[in-house]
């Protein structure tokens, strides 16, 4: 039993050391991140929208504020931040408007649900209407034909002729 405990202790120590070593290796790697290229900065900036100008992606916004935000992204990248962390930072700082689509939460679901629902309803409506129109109607046609019934013999003959031509 004692041996088992000792083995477990050694194992835990080894795992701990390994984790520590890995973490240190990672930290060293992050600290030594080379200066990010413009393309790396722009790739993330493209997914963010200028918090000041309306509907302008951060990578192309010409304002001084946006230039500074791009520099901030560069700095964060050089410090080893991930893309998600950078995006989250901007969301925390400036709200969800900095991302190109509303996050799928709460009321925002309406953005994604309502248009397909309306389109689907339209499609069903159209399909049903088309089916109703293409079916040989007896009940629907009767009153209309009554309404459009020719008033005199000449008109009746004319209608007949026209039907034949069809």
């Amino acid at each position, binding site marked *: 039993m004692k041996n088992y405990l000792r083995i477990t202790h050694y194992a835990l120590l080894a795992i701990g050391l390994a984790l520590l070593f890995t973490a240190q290796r990672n930290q060293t790697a992050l600290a030594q991140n080379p200066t990010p290229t413009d393309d790396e900065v722009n790739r993330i900036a493209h997914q963010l929208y200028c918090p000041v100008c309306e509907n302008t992606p951060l990578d192309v916004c010409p304002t001084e504020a946006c230039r500074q935000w791009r520099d901030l992204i560069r700095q964060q990248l050089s410090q080893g931040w991930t893309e998600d962390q950078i995006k989250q930072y901007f969301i925390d700082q400036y709200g969800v*408007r900095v991302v190109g689509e509303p996050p799928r939460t709460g009321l925002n679901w309406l953005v994604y649900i309502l248009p397909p629902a309306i389109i689907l309803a339209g499609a069903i409506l159209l399909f049903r209407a088309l089916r109703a129109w293409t079916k040989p109607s007896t009940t629907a046609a009767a009153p209309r034909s009554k309404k459009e019934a020719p008033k005199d013999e000449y008109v009746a003959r004319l209608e007949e002729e026209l039907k034949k031509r069809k």
Partner: protein
Amino acid sequence: MLAEIGYGILVVTFIVALYSVGAAIYGERKKSPAFVESARRAMLLTWPLISLSAATLIYLLVTNHFEVSFVYEVTSREMPTYLKVTAWWGGQAGSLVFWSWLMSAFASLVTLRKWDRDREFLPWVIVVTSITTAFFLGLVIFFENPFARYWQTFDGQVVASMFAPANATAFFPQDGRGLNPLLRHPGMIIHPPMLYLGFVSFVIPYAFAMAALITGRTDDRWIRLTRRWTLWAWLFLSFGLVLGGRWAYDVLGWGGYWGWDPVEIAAFMPWLTGTAFLHSVMIQEKRGLLKHWNMILIILTYALVIFGTFLTRSGVLSSVHAFAQSAIGPAFFAFIGATFITSIALVIYRWPELRGETEMKSMLSREALFLLNNLLFMSVLVICFWGVIFPLISELVTGQKVTVGPPFYERATAPLFATLMFLMGVAPLSAWGNSTLLTLGRALWKSALAALAVTGLLFFTYTKNAIALIGFFLIAFVLFVTLIEFWRATRARMNAQNENFFTALLTLVGRNRRRYGGYVIHMSMMLMAIGILGIEVFQIQTQGTLPLDGSLKLGEYSVKYESIAQFTGPDNRQVTRAVVGVYDQKGNYLGELHPRIDYYPDAQQNMTIPGERPTLRDDLYVLLVDWQPVSANGATFKIFVNPLVNWLWIGAIIFFFGILIAAWPERESEVVPARTKRVHQPSAAD
């Protein structure tokens, strides 16, 4: 004094327009042709009156009357005269005068036509167009007055007002702020008038639709009378959109032409309903169906035209607060609401009379496919409208601002556009009245096979991207269908009439302008689709800071930074212009480009103008992002390669010719009785 005269004329015009409405209604109700004629003349008077007021405004703009607030906001001493003239529509107040001027011009044109057969429509057309004109004049007079002057109050504050506040003296600024540099581009000078022409032209079919509903003359006469107006409206609106895209591409410096911005979408939405309407009216003309739907479509188009005008200039959708603070916001919404509800109420009132005269026989008939086309256009509209409105709703309900940007629109609309393209290939070959899978299959298989062959070729030589391949298949399919249609009919004519190819083709198109104009439009759309697909799927970009003689590689191009210079350009702008050499992969010199940054001191704003190398294969697009002013040794460039994008602009030019063909007057179209065409044999040949 001039400002007072300009404003006074607008007030008089407003009263004249209102009189025109009143006289037309009174004349119609009392069956008094004299009053209707009086209304018509009153309406005809509005155009010269607004022209006079506009001339006054232009004079103030050109002669640097900065004491007028509008002149101060949109011009400066440095601006060239032509820009001062175009500044008329560069600001909100002036553009509302411009809208009214166009509206009265179009309304006058339409009332000058011969009304013999359609005299019953006249009073109501006058009512609708005059109400619209009066509404815009009212906005100008009561909310957005371009003639308001600056006054300095006794406590030193400067206020803009038409009349002098108590104890205030006139204030004369030395210089104006100048037109927004982004609006000084030729594209932007023509773009708003084109868009407005499109908007205003759509009011005419709407006015006739309302006249038809009110008078109960619900056959397709109103459609036949306004068919050409609708086509011109569509042409102007389409061209306005394309010019806007070109402007964005050349001026905004982000390597694209369309950013799904609410203002862009505002102009796109009436185009969607207008396009659906253009197709849908054909069903009513040919088959006597969809009368309700056509009414609803033109009502929607009118509402979206007013909505679009509102959004384009005011930018109120940026925030709920901006809307609440906007003076014209509530007025616009009240007008849109009132006209929409009244129009729909009229449709409901005439519902029984708007029933179809025949029935649909097949789900694959052309009318059924046109209906599907309408559903798709409406679906895109729903997505666009909701995407534009939702941020406002979110802010209103939760206080949270959200952005509905390109990723949402692109994902949601791409499948719909793809289906529309497919329909563009299938629908022209289906017959009015009846079509079966077999007849359609027979008509389509050759084109489908040829398109498959093209797609296969592209798979082995150009791309393995699935989306691109689907897109190219659809484009090739539609192009083959249309070209085969042209060829079949031309060959038939060559055989029957013993004509050579060109004579046969020209006669064919000349005698069936609407049909072949439509085909040309379809083909132009496909060329535009090539450009859109190219830039959306294959665009590549890079950015880097280069020392002098340093190079940046992208795709098959290498761009070498050669020099930079600063100088003062026309319009007093400070130009920083780089010279870059362009080389291909093998190091062959292809030419030089001049990306530049223009700084406008009056507006204190930069403009980034790209250097472009357009070819049919791609567009090399180089931006000067930044530079070190002291040493000029380093400059940052952003480079895009936009494959195939120039097909978009080529397609737009062909599109223009397509509409010209379709809209060119045909003598018989005005005199053919409405019913005679409906009794023909259903066939694909129509």
